[in-house]
């Protein structure tokens, strides 16, 4: 596709359930980022993938959060045993290996834990 695609766009889940959020980056982009954004707040870094390098997981808030990127393309962010404080918009972005190019964001997945 032409841009970064995230699915689902909205997800309502019950507390304690697991959820998977998907990100399809722009084809050929080697870098992929996941961010979390609570209402009215800034971007909270979660995880960064760059090519075949080990991902930077330093932003994941707890061991309930994990992410993988298969084949250097699609990424899945998994939240286990969801809690109400996990409710937020989860944004994915990708960028190319070329220097001096911006990252492109998806529209995000709005997660609501009830």
């Amino acid at each position, binding site marked *: 596709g032409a841009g*970064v695609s995230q699915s689902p766009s909205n997800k309502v889940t019950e507390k304690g359930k697991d959820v998977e959020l998907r990100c399809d980056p722009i084809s050929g982009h080697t*870098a992929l980022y996941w961010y979390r954004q609570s209402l009215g707040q*800034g971007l909270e870094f979660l995880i960064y993938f760059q090519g075949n390098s080990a991902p930077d997981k330093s932003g994941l808030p707890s061991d309930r959060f994990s992410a993988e990127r298969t084949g250097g393309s699609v990424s899945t962010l998994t939240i286990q045993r969801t809690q109400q404080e996990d409710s937020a918009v989860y*944004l994915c*972005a990708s960028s190319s290996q070329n220097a001096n190019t*911006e990252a492109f*964001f*998806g529209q995000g997945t709005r997660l609501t834990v009830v």
Partner: protein
Amino acid sequence: GESVGLHLPTLSVQEGDNSIINCAYSNSASDYFIWYKQESGKGPQFIIDIRSNMDKRQGQRVTVLLNKTVKHLSLQIAATQPGDSAVYFCAERYGNNRLAFGKGNQVVVIP
């Protein structure tokens, strides 16, 4: 480092006035900087960028200024319009093609 979720500072500006949004970046080795605009319910979108070998770059109604001495970046919006109401993020690129984002500033345009 990366931004942490905090309530955003807000800049209120009268329609037609100029806006200035400031950003302090963290890494002196950063060589590329970007401003993003995020409208309600959407993902951040690119506005303008600047390389570290420049100190000013102009786009349509927007100007980015870079002061590497004090690690400061600013975005100027001329003749602010209601459609400029959004959250604005700066980003720096350093090491291994990595982007790091600032905390963001909410701009509210008063008609």
